[in-house]
Each structure stands twice: as C-alpha cells, then as structure tokens.
C-alpha cells in the first residue's frame, strides 16, 4: 500500500455511490413509468429491518458469501465457473444423504458431512476441469450443461432415496439426527430466530481465501495465470494443473454453500431446498470485485435487498421481483462506474506526472514513466 492519497480515496467512494445513485434513479423511473408508488417502495426497501430480519439478512448473506467466494476463486484466474449452481446442489444432496444416515455422533457427523460435500462439489467440478484441460472445452459451456445434468441427476437420485412423509407433497432425504442439528447463536437481541452456526464457516472460508490467494505462492501463480497465461507459462507455472486445481477448489467451496441451510434450517435436502444460489454468487463476486471483504459487503447488500423485498407486496403493493431489477441495475452501474473511475484516475495521474515533470528542470529526461 502506498502513501495516503486523498484523491484516490475520493474516487473510490465515487464509484459505488454513483452506482447506487444510478440504480436508485433508474428504479424510480421504472416505478414511475408503470405507475407504482415510488415513495412507498423506497420506504419499504430502505426501512430499518427488525431484529429477526437482521438475523435473516446475516444468515442469507453467509450462504451467498460462500457461493460468491467459490465463483471468485475461478474468476481470479479467468475461469468462469458458471457451474457453482449445479455443484452446490450435487454437494448439498450428497451431504444431506450422508448426514441423514447418522453414522457418526453429533458434531463429528457435521464435520465429516462438510468434507463429503466438498468432495462431491469438487468431483462434479472436476468433470468441467478435465474437459477443459484435456479437450479444450470452454468451462462456460460445460458448466452450464453440467448444471442441467446436476438438476436431473439429483432429482432422479432424490426420487430413489427419498422418504415421503404422510400427507405431505414434498419429498426429501432423511432428516439429519437432532444431535447434528446446529442451534445457532442468539447474536441479535430481541430476535426470535438465531444466526446460523455455520456463519463461522463463511468467515473461515473468507479468511482462507484472502490468505491463500494473497499470501501464498499458489495464490500468486493462480492470479498470475489469470492476468496473463503466457507470462505465467514463461515464469514456470504449469497452467493445466492450475486450471484443474482452481476449478476443483472452486467446486469444493461451492460444496459448502448449502451447508448452513442444511444444518441450520432445512435439516434435509428436498424439493424446497433453496435454488439459484450459484447464479446469485456470480453477481456478488462481480460486485465485490473478487475481494474477500468486498464480497462480504456485497453479500450483505444482496441479502438486505432480498429480505426487504419480501414486504414490498404487503406494504407497497409492488411485486418483489422489483428487487431483481434493482440488483441487476446495481451490477451494471457498478461495473460501468468502476471503469469510468479507473479512466478518470489514470487521466488525473498522467496529468499529475506531467505537471511534476514540467516543474522539474527541462534538462532531466522523463524516463521514469507514470506509476499508475
């Protein structure tokens, strides 16, 4: 980190503020155009959440965080793992199936289930990795296809193993034993519900992600491969092996996505298990710029919007899908804003350097170059 630069910080603040402002204006315009109550919508969305809603936000954010980190591992080396969605469902199913057997007592069952889920997710991702390394198949195509296959496979297996409760129309794997269910923490005062115990898992994964990618040789190689494959090859990185490793790591992390839900809420994998988390993770990884802290805030923002959208119909009479529009606009605006700010920053930096050079004696040749 270089010296304190007020300009840089100001510009950094400008990007997200700009993006949120744009999202605010565009959404308001849409609401106004279709004749919905603009003021009511913002009142509902921006109103302070109640304690139990805060718990929901934290819980939901932890799950989204795991998903986004899984995606980000791939992103950092230019691998677009669109398959997190399929990977987490395969893994959650495998994990739920394993945990439901109750072969091990309480916490041991939880720990080993996490391992099973990571292995399942990693194995599923390894198909795409193998196809890319050996056959040159784009991971975008193969992971999208594998998502569809995962849906069919999991459903087929679910029908084979599921037990249907009397009078219920839902199906699911065997419930995990009481001793392996995690009660959660009563973190938020006055809330009737609890924060998932496995929020800790999300934090742990975040720290590991930051450490491995930022502080280890492996992380450096991975990022180098992402920046420039040819340069990485030249510096002795075995790219196919990196692709394999990164993809499988991404899949293994994706395997953890469903775990807070499994142990903290659903206690089984069934027809009502949350879907679509993998795709949400892609957006959040983009918004958080693949950064461990950035993704944490992006997840919280996403979870906050999702949570607040629930009341839209009840309080403002507007469809909750409006929040999808807001989230989409934020993403677009953020990507554009970051680029605009980057260019502005570059221009200002060039101007500064030029000014400094001009101020120096004309005899000194400008050999140092801009340090932008």
């Amino acid at each position, binding site marked *: 980190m270089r010296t304190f630069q007020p300009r840089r910080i100001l510009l950094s603040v400008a990007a997200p503020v700009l993006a*949120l402002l744009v999202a605010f204006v565009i959404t308001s315009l849409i609401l106004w155009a279709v004749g919905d109550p603009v003021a009511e919508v913002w009142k509902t969305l921006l109103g302070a959440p109640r304690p139990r809603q805060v718990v929901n936000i934290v819980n939901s954010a932890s799950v989204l965080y795991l998903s986004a980190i899984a995606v980000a591992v791939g992103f950092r080396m230019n691998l677009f793992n669109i398959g997190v969605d399929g990977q987490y469902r395969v893994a959650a199913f495998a994990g739920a199936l394993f945990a439901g057997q109750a072969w091990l007592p309480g916490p041991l069952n939880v720990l080993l289930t996490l391992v099973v889920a990571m292995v399942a997710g990693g194995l599923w991702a390894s198909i795409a990795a193998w196809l890319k390394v050996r056959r040159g198949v784009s991971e975008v195509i193969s992971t999208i296809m594998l998502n569809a296959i995962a849906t069919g496979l999991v*459903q087929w297996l679910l029908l084979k193993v599921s037990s249907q409760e009397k009078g219920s129309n839902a*199906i699911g794997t065997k419930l995990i034993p009481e001793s392996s269910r995690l009660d959660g923490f009563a973190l938020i005062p006055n809330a009737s519900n609890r924060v998932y115990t496995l929020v800790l898992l999300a934090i742990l994964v975040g720290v590991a992600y930051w450490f491995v990618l930022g502080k280890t040789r492996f992380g450096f190689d991975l990022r180098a491969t992402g920046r420039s494959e040819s340069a990485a090859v030249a510096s002795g990185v075995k790219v196919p092996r990196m692709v394999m490793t990164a993809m499988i790591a991404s899949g293994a992390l994706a395997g953890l996505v469903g775990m807070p839900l499994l142990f903290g809420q659903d206690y089984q994998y069934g027809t009502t298990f949350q879907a679509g988390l993998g795709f949400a993770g892609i957006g959040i990884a983009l918004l958080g*710029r693949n950064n461990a802290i*950035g993704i944490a805030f992006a997840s919280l923002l996403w979870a906050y919007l999702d949570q607040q959208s629930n009341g839209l119909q*009840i309080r403002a009479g507007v469809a909750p899908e409006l929040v999808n529009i807001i989230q989409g606009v934020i993403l677009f605006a953020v990507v554009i804003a970051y680029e605009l700010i980057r260019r502005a920053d570059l221009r200002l930096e060039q101007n500064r350097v030029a000014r400094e050079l001009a101020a120096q004696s004309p005899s000194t040749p400008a050999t140092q170059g801009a340090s932008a």
Partner: protein
Amino acid sequence: MRHTIKVAAVMSAAALALAACGDSGGTSSGGGSTSSAGAKKTIKVGMAYDVGGRGDQSFNDSAAAGLDKAKSELGVEVKEAAAVNGENEAAREERLQQLVDAGYTHIVAVGFAYAKSVGKAAKDNPDAHFAIVDDASADSKGPNVDQITFAENEGSFIVGAAAALKSKAGNIGFVGGVNTPLIKKFEAGYVAGAKAVNKDIKIQIKYLTQPPDFSGFADPAKGKTAAEGMYQSGADVVYHAAGGSGGGVFTAAKAANAMAIGVDSDQALTAPADVKDVIITSMIKKVDVGVFDFIKSATEGKELSGNKVYDLKSGGVDYSTTGGKIDDIKAKLDDYKKQIIDGKITVPTTP
C-alpha cells in the same frame, strides 16, 4: 487498483446503510401498522401464493378466485403476496410473519412449499389462523391450521376414463408440469381410470421439468412440444396437469385436430377462444372452495382446523361438461364417480 475496489465496496454498503438510516425516521409509522385492526371483530385475510402468484392460470389463480369471492361476498379485507423463485425457508416464514405483523388475522398459504413455515408461524402466532393448500403433513399441523387437500387422483380417474372412452386409437397421453409427488397423484388416477375402461390402452407419460426447476408449470412452449410428440405417436387425447404450460398442450391438440383435457379449473371456459373446442372436459380442483370455506367459516366465528380432504364425495374435485363433448359418455362417467364415492373403487395415489 485492488485498494480502490476494497474501499469502494465498503463505501457502497455504507452508503446504503446511511440511506436506510436517513429514511427510517419517516418510515416508522408507515410500517404497515394498522390502527383499525381489533376495533371490531372483522377478519382480515392475508394470502401467500406460491411461485407464479395470481395470473398463473393454475392453482394460485384458483385460490385467488376463492379470495375474490370472499372479498365481494363477505366484505373481508385482503392482502396478497407471492413467493419468488429460489427463495429459502426463512423467506417463506418471513412472508407469513409480515402478514401477521401487518394485522392480518387469517393467513392462507398456497402450496406445499409453505408446510414448514406455516407450522412455525402458527406456533409463533397462536392468535392468528392459518390455512395451507395441498399439505396435510405433521410439519404444518396445529390447532390453528386448516389443512386443505384434494383427492386429485379421484378426479383424474374420471377424466382418465373419459379419455379412454373417447379415444379411437386406444392411445392417450399425460403431460405433467413438474415431476413431484403431487403431480404423480394426477398421473396415478388418470392411468387407473383409463385402464378401468380399456385394460390394454397405451398411455404416454411425460413430465416437463424436474424440481427444483418449476418452470414446467409456466412454459407453454414445453407443453406444446411434449403434446405434439404424443399426438404424432398416435395419441388422440392428452390430459395435462401442468398449470400454465397447458396452453401449449391445447395449441398442439388444435394443430393435430385431436382432443385435450384441462385441469384445475373448467378450462373450456377459461382457455383462449381458438382452442376451447379441443377441450373435451377438465378435472376441476376447487382450491377456491377450500379457501372460501376457510374464510367464510371464520367470519361466522367458527375457525377451521385439521385436515379437510376435498374429494369427489364433497364435490372438491369433479369433471366439467362445458361444450357438451362428453355428453354421450356422461352416464358411464357418473357411474364411475358413484363407485368411487361409494368406496367400490379405490383410486391409487401413486403410479
């Protein structure tokens, strides 16, 4: 650059939090609090739909019809909210809780996905009353929960018999929206009914999607493709239990100059005019009656609870005769209906 991003992300969240604080002052009274609630003993009905909500041309719409009837006939105040795709259990709980918080005394949850959340909300709010459509499990059971279920297999048996009686080719089809136990129940009844008429009948069965992909209930293009395939392989009657995808089945039937059977509501009345004439009958599932019963009973001071099965006997499921296409076989169908009601025929619930 990475530094920039980090700060940017922090600030974006902070900006939102600030905006939230700035606004909350004016919001405190607008949080859905109702001053009139409790003044007199009137009931207010909150309705939580499954994904698709009002306008899905399927069971959500049927539930909405019951709500509309209650609103116009009983003058109850209503509020509606629909589930969004890919939400988790907490979101469903939250929806029910928010309806309770907003002063709604009677909450109707449409669809089995709400089973656990209704069970929890009912426990947390013992003074509120709940109804759930399509679930009778222990998850949603409670002293203040009305579990509304239907004998879809019985109704499907009748239209299965109708299909077999009307088919000249001895070849009929079934298009299910999403491969769930509930839709399997339709299939089971349909197959049993058709086989009761013609033991050797050929029945083509296709499901449009697998869970958790529930788009099979709202994708007419998929319904059309599936039905086209069936008609091309010799079927001349196709029954759909696929919600909004059923429109595609009717289009395919029209193009093949064949017959189709509707579901949930009397689709010979509700389908677009150009395909109405291919619908020979519909298996009617009266979700609206279940919902209306719950509300009406409550306004009369009698709260319903426990499982009520709406079957052929109680008129909760039935077949329609609009268009007069099955008038010639009506006597036979009514005979089957009587045998089921009398318990002489037991219709299976799983294929």
